[in-house]
């Protein structure tokens, strides 16, 4: 195991600006600057048999104004997973594709392009895939507030069919106030105060659930 680690460390240490962390058995985390990432992947694929791209993850660090891209690569021979972390500028949101090294990158890069708006130069299919009918901002970005979007777009108080009206007349209906829901503490956290106020103003609260 130590030989193996030494060999891997030798290969990894050839990459500029690399920081290696052995997290636990079979898990290695490396942090590299964005311009060294493809060098790193080429090295570990070509010289250390890391042929399986398990996933590419994008994390939106909005406070740092950066996207973090994480490449999880597995070696069938050494049974070890390298997670290569790199950060790119959030405003520019552009990076190079690794499709020529790993074919599965096609799927992951298209997914990230769609959900985060990061454009991968050289990726074969930079187009809509899952959200073909969506024209707003990439929804997985942290500044897209899905709950606010729902509040603005849909109005459930308009939904008042006859059967519900009858129930309400008998003292039933949709009568659970948000603060009466059992997990009110977490719901309180989830909705911002602004949305809660708006909710209170618009929601028709029925009677009879709790006197």
């Amino acid at each position, binding site marked *: 195991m130590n030989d193996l680690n030494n060999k891997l460390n030798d290969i990894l240490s050839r990459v500029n600006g690399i920081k290696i962390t052995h997290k636990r058995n*079979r*898990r290695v985390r490396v942090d590299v600057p964005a311009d060294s990432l493809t060098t790193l992947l080429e090295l570990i694929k070509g010289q250390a048999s890391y*042929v*399986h*791209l*398990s*996933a590419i*993850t994008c*994390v*939106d660090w909005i406070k740092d104004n950066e996207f973090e891209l*994480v490449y*999880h690569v*597995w070696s*069938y021979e050494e*049974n070890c*997973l390298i*997670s290569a972390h790199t950060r790119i500028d959030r405003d520019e949101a552009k990076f190079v594709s690794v499709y020529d090294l*790993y*074919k*599965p990158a*096609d*799927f992951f890069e298209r*997914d990230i392009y769609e*959900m985060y708006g990061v454009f991968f130069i050289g990726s074969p299919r930079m187009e809509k*895939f*899952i*959200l*073909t*009918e969506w024209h707003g901002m990439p*929804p*997985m970005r942290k500044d897209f507030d*899905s*709950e606010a979007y729902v509040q603005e777009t849909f109005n459930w108080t308009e939904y008042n069919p006859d059967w519900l009206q009858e129930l309400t007349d008998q003292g039933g209906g949709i009568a659970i106030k948000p603060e009466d829901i059992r*997990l009110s*503490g*977490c719901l309180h*956290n*989830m909705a911002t105060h602004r949305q809660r106020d708006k909710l209170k103003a618009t929601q028709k609260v029925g009677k009879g659930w709790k006197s």
Partner: protein
Amino acid sequence: MRPENYQAVQLGESNEYEIFIGPNHPGIEGNYALKLVLDGDIVVKGTTDAGYLHRGFEKLMEGRLWIQNLAIVPRICVPDPAPMEVSYSLAVEEIMGIEAPIRAQWIRVMQLELSRVAAHLFTFGGHAATTGMYTPMYWGVADRDLVLDLFEDFTGGRVYSIYNIPGGVRRELPNGFLEKLSNLLDYLESRQNDYDNLLFTNQIFVQRAKGVGILSKEDALDYGVTGPNLRACGLAFDVRRDDPYLVYDQLDFDIPTQQAGDAWARILVRRDELFQSIRILRQVIEKLPTIKGPIRTPIPNPLSWNVRAGEAYARVESSKGELAYYVVSDGGDKPYRVHVRGPSSMHAVQTLEYLAKGARLEDVAQIMFSLDACPPEVDR
């Protein structure tokens, strides 16, 4: 997303036609479509069209407490939900630096293997049905139901158990449960002959499945194929053995492989895996009564539970292949990011497009099902 046409459309002056298979098609395990360009009945090009099941799970999870997400994760794959719960729990445990008690780990193994048995029984029937053979489907679903009865017994839920929690499992097994499990395993083993006669040695099925959708080992590695689909190409890789989690390193089981890489090889690998799962479950029945102790490591009050900052990549072997959760915490009461790496995201898109090319229209449904893709893993 929505098919532009429901009838075959001729493309220009050529002999080529464009048609949609799906999104609702008896040959698909869920909702996704394949847009095909056909020349006669030969597929010139296939393009996967997903998104019909997108429910924004990853975004939802960022807005919910760590504990609330346990109710969301199993819904990402209906036929095989247990690996989702376990994988999420393992990732959170790794960030927190805790480990489930040994008894809980054995119970988790039992749940995972039962779920694999249920998923494979479902797949046999579905695969057979794509060749026009419906009896294995009825049998598979009926036998799967017996496994679901057991799930109901020890978790309370038939399909979505929501049984795991970071730190262990939620309930102790009911009295006499292991006996029931043992009886079920006896029954499933007694069915082996029937299944073999009906399906696995049935020449009509064998001739339809052999040589369809051939994937070479090199291509499988190229396209990121994992699980039974990879083992059907001759590579004996299994996360349970090669990246062991829970107590799999203490269990004795084989990794079935086939060399041909076609639809026939893939269903044979699943058949053999089913019996390996039974073998594992027998070991669990033997071992579990000897392990006493708690089933949960205490966690803080779930409503004010902050997981310390960190990240973890937890992989498990689901019935479809390598399933992984990448979870990032910034120290808050909700996950900062959860990424689900479903095995089907590789199988249902690029691999399927590659295999569909050059296939005959009548085989497309079989190729789709033989890859055993679970579309919600693509859409999430």
